[in-house]
């Protein structure tokens, strides 16, 4: 019961969460309708869902997930019930993850209906793109939730957005100016493996570990599995950081 209430709270805590879900679904539908050519492919649309659903949705849903309670002092009530802080964190993250899973299933139906009604585009690989988006959502949501423990109100999402946008431009600039140099290789590896796996998951979803992989045989499937495993482990690592931070913080009953 307690678990159910905590999971439900992640959806009901703010009215705008429902609006976010609905507007995101409408956005997918509009993008599909407007941009997909008749004999088109799903890859461009897949990338759109991947970024909007995997990254921006995670930021929107996790904004202030702990920061709001900490700022208002409500967190003291939650952790003194007694409520193990680890459990609180896990159920909240699980709540976000479940919301996202339902969101992506609904997205599939929206696209399917548009596809049938308009006879546009293709459904090939859409499932894989949605699965990759859900995995990315989990890592981004875990990172954002952990950040929410130490950043007041809803600024965790804003901070992550700024960091990622800055990171994106810095990496693009580095890739253009220092191509193929060993020093930047270490930095790129760090970004690739320690940060949310944007590149790995988009390659996984676009089939680069399949038909067009640089290898042949069963290794391609193994690589897809490894990609999923790495993404899930990253989610766990980010979550553990958040749980540790939450359990070590002393909360005051006074509002910020």
């Amino acid at each position: 019961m307690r678990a159910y209430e905590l999971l439900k709270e992640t959806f009901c805590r703010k009215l705008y969460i429902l609006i976010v879900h609905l507007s995101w679904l409408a956005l997918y539908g509009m993008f599909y309708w407007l941009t997909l050519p008749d004999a088109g492919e799903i890859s461009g649309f897949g990338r759109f869902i991947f970024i909007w659903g995997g990254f921006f949705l995670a930021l929107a849903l996790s904004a202030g997930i702990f920061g709001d309670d900490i700022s208002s002092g409500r967190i003291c009530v939650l952790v003194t019930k007694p409520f193990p802080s680890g459990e609180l964190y896990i159920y909240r993250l699980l709540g976000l993850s479940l919301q996202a899973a339902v969101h992506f299933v609904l997205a599939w139906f929206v696209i399917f209906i548009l596809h049938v009604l308009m006879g546009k585009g293709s459904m090939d690989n859409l499932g894989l793109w949605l699965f990759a988006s859900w995995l990315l959502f989990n890592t981004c949501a875990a990172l954002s939730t952990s950040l929410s423990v130490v950043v007041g109100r809803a600024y965790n999402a804003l901070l992550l957005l700024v960091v990622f946008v800055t990171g994106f431009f810095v990496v693009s600039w580095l890739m253009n100016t220092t191509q193929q140099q060993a020093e930047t290789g270490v930095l790129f590896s760090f970004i690739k493996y320690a940060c949310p796996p944007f590149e790995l998951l988009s390659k996984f979803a676009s089939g680069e570990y399949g038909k067009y992989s640089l290898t042949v045989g069963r290794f391609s499937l193994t690589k897809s599995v490894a990609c999923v495993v790495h993404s899930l482990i990253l989610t766990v690592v980010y979550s553990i950081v958040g749980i540790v931070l939450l359990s070590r913080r002393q909360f005051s009953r006074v509002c910020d």
Partner: protein
Amino acid sequence: MRNKINVWTFTTIAALVLEGWALYVVGSSPAHWRPSMIVKDEPAAHALYEKMIETIRQAESLSYQSVCSGPGAKYRSSTYEILLKKPNYFHVEMSNFMSGYTTLVGDGDNLWFYWKGIRPFSAYEDRDSYEKTRENIYIKKAIPIGRYSIKDQINMFGMVWFGIILDPSTFHGHRDSLEAYIDGIRSRGTDYVNNEECEVLEVSFMKAQQTRYYWIAKKEHLPRKIKEIVRLANNIVEVEEFSDIKINPRIQEQKFTWSPPEGWQQWEKPGPDDFLLKPGTKAPDFELLSVDGGTIKLSDYQGKAIWLYIWQCGSPACREEISHLQAFYENHKEKGSVILGFNCADDKRIAQYFIRENTITFPSIFDSSNAAKKVITDGYKNRSGMVPLSYIIDTQGNVVDSWYGYDEDHKRASAALKKAGMQLE
């Protein structure tokens, strides 16, 4: 309490092992070239490869459909309907979402190249000439048996479609120019393509600058799928998939004949040379990365006759010429001339390996940045991307001569360098 610690310890170790495995698998991607990618020859696999070529050549007629595609660009995938007949007949229909329909007909003596409707824009022509020649035109060329390549004819157009990997001219006895550069062939086990059991072969060319995987059907030793990886600054992957393969089918004779309808005109396609900088033009200056990590500026060589040699490791002609260039450089470097190598396409590791292997000492630019590519495509007007491309630049920095291809006896280069200011005896 102790049990709890044990569970946590076990879980942590398991997670670390799992993550270690995942990183190993994800990180061990052959995204970057390594010497270990050069395949060592296995006689059994090599024999199977030869058997495939022999099966193609022994047929009296052959028909198949192939679809060529690459990652993230499904709309660019191209479909080829291919009919081949001995001694020198062929009919190839290409279709592509972007480029429409193109037909090649070999009537035994000539190749006819024509389009249904409007022809697509070629990489090296200007818009004005395209507007004048986009409809009701055809190309006619002589096709000596075994000495022409259908694949080259298709690729020379530089369209937006994916070109074929297996040259249909193999059937007529043409040898792929890459065959001389095979490092080795090895077996990669068996696999199924459309429920057909296939042997998978890995063939590496030019010290693994290119790798091809062949799925060869056990049934009649013809390919069902080929994957080609070209290792440039970025890897280029293309897949050709075969279907509806028929050996010795009956093909209607009229498929191999074509004559231009009334009002159609023969089109002389502009060559890539037409766009190169003309003699007397100022050679664009640049400052780019050199092979040793420093920078090279063209204007630093002012006062010398410069042979700017634009090359790639993956070009057989470049590989052939570059060792002779080194000898030429050794013999002429004291005579007021310099050879300046320019490579903006290759993976740096492959290029460095090649340079070391051929003991190249003349100054070389290795820069795969967009700025370097722009110098070549916009500055030096290499719109086709073909290599080798040579520019001879005089002591004042003006272009004296330019040409594509391997100047075997260096006569043209010597004459141009002399004109550019080099002291030749």
